[in-house]
């Protein structure tokens, strides 16, 4: 069967501070047949993107171990969702969880901040540590301030842009801080999420009036406000347009310096663009884990090879 030639897969370069230049690389062998239809980001090949330069794989010696998942299994009722998964989560790197729908990647992500506990009938075994401490021993509210999450749908709270971020700054059971006292922290969080310039004059406007992409960056600002160690992203771009997706991908690659980033994505090209490490899950099992370079270039497992080449999804 003849497959249409896919658009080249691009990765953001390390020094994208001044603009959205993305550089193209010829598709690695593994991804060569990945169907063009799944490229939701609308990048089209053009001469501007002809430079075949791929961002160098990050030197993992600067990465810091933050979380460790050890033999984690999660089941909903009798239905296993995650089966005995072990992997490290490091600051300085973006870890992408990929795999077909229902493979347990979102459950794995939600286990990291104990959101799975809110689902009735969920049972667990195994151990997850955050900076060496078993997260089961932490207060969930304290844990979730250190391991924050951004969801698939932008979901700002029905309050002003300012209050959305300030809401997070107020710790549980503490008094509500004065507005002036948190202004600096709010602006800092918005700046880290790359939103401050756009909303600086409208901090009092309702957050739900922002555009979808702005809403999602506000959600990222909200997630960053408490200065977490780990940022979880559950398909953060799947409801967004290509332009907003690009902004958020740029943001993620910047953020990994300060925070360990774990992203669940259905979009292989997105994983290719932003991930340093990739974990491929299938039917609840971790099939393969490795550097993005290795996973997209020369996957060891047959199923990884098949998934990445688009044989199933």
């Amino acid at each position, binding site marked *: 069967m003849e497959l249409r030639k896919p658009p080249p897969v691009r990765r953001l370069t390390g020094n994208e501070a001044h603009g959205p230049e993305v550089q193209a690389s010829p598709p690695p062998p593994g991804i060569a047949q990945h169907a063009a239809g799944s490229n939701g980001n609308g990048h089209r090949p053009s001469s501007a993107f002809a430079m075949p330069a791929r961002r160098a794989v990050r030197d993992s010696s600067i990465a810091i171990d933050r979380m460790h998942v050890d033999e984690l299994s999660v089941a909903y009722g009798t239905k296993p969702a995650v089966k005995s998964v072990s992997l490290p989560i490091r600051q300085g790197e973006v870890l992408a969880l990929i795999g077909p729908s229902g493979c347990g990647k979102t459950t794995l992500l939600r286990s990291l901040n104990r*959101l799975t506990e809110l689902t009735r009938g969920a049972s667990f075994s195994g151990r997850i540590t955050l900076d060496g401490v078993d997260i089961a021993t932490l207060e969930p509210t304290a844990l979730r301030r250190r391991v924050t999450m951004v969801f698939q749908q932008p979901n700002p709270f029905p309050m002003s842009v300012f209050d959305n971020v300030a809401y997070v700054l107020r710790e549980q059971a503490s008094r509500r801080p004065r507005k002036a006292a948190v202004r600096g922290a709010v602006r800092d969080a918005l700046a880290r999420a790359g939103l401050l310039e756009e909303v600086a004059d409208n901090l009092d406007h309702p957050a739900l009036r922002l555009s979808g992409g702005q809403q999602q960056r506000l959600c990222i600002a909200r997630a960053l406000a408490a200065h977490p160690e780990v940022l979880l992203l559950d398909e953060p771009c799947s409801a967004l347009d290509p332009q907003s997706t690009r902004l958020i991908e740029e943001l993620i690659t910047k953020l990994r310096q300060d925070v360990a980033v774990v992203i669940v994505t259905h979009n292989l090209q997105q994983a290719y663009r932003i991930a340093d490490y990739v974990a491929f899950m299938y039917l609840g099992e971790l099939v393969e884990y490795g550097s993005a370079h290795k996973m997209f270039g020369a996957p060891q497992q047959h199923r990884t090879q098949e998934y990445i080449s688009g044989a199933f999804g």
Partner: protein
Amino acid sequence: MSTVTAAPAGKRKTSSASWRLTDRLGLGLAWLLGLLFCAIAAAIVIYFLVEGIRYLSPSLLVTNPAPGVSESQTGGFLDPLLGTVIIGFLAMAIATPVGVGIAVWLSEFGRPTGLARVAESSVEMLAGEPSVVLALFGTILFTVRQLGFLSQTSHGIVLGQSFFAAAALLSLVGLPMVVASTREGLQAIPSHVREASYAVGKTKIATTRRVLLPAARPSMITGTMLGLGRVIGDTAIVLLLLGGTLTFQPANSIPVLGLLRGTGDTLTGYIYYNAPTGDGNQPSKAYAAAFVLMLMVLALNLGVDFVLRRSQRAVRWS
């Protein structure tokens, strides 16, 4: 019948001409009943509009009912009008917080399930209860000696009629509206919004108070307005528990408390009294009062429409 069927069917571009006869008759009947209903509603509004404007004069709104046999002697309905306002305010001041609390518990907590189901059917039962039954229960409840401080006592007998008593029972009339509407509003909030709040380290209580209740505010307002419409339209509880005394009869001379412990009337009680078949038999006054009451209820309904339309226009989560 066939002409009725043909007319609307002909206007519509979808050709019901090809339908079976029974279907076409059914469609015609539906049209007929719909138009009939509109006609009835319009007739009521127009009749009271015409009669109300004819009989309503500003003096009626500022004078109190007085004994007499002719229209010039019997005064206006200032006290019943104020009574409606007081009763509506008091009843909803009870029903709104209680109703919102019940709705939050049912929608966000609801454990144990059995208790939630009981609470749910209790509210439903309350909504279907004829208000005269509630009123009868109220008379039994408020004539208990321990509750004498809420109404008047004469020769050791608790009368059990007061604004407090009537408002307490009328709050039960408004409550189901508040519960149903608030619950609907809470359930319309997607679960990922709740999770987003948990995911930044917030408890369920904080999430409910700071995220869910503000998001459900239009529904709460709608429920309160709908409940208020039911409350100010109720007659049975007013007659049995407010005394139906046409004017305020304070229990003592303490400014507000004495009034609320005393008896009075509302517009519905006033209309009941002055209807052509009532004791007062002052139809023109009854029409004028009915017109005012109708305006109040219409204003509430318009308010509900306004709130709902505005909240629908507001950008929501997908």
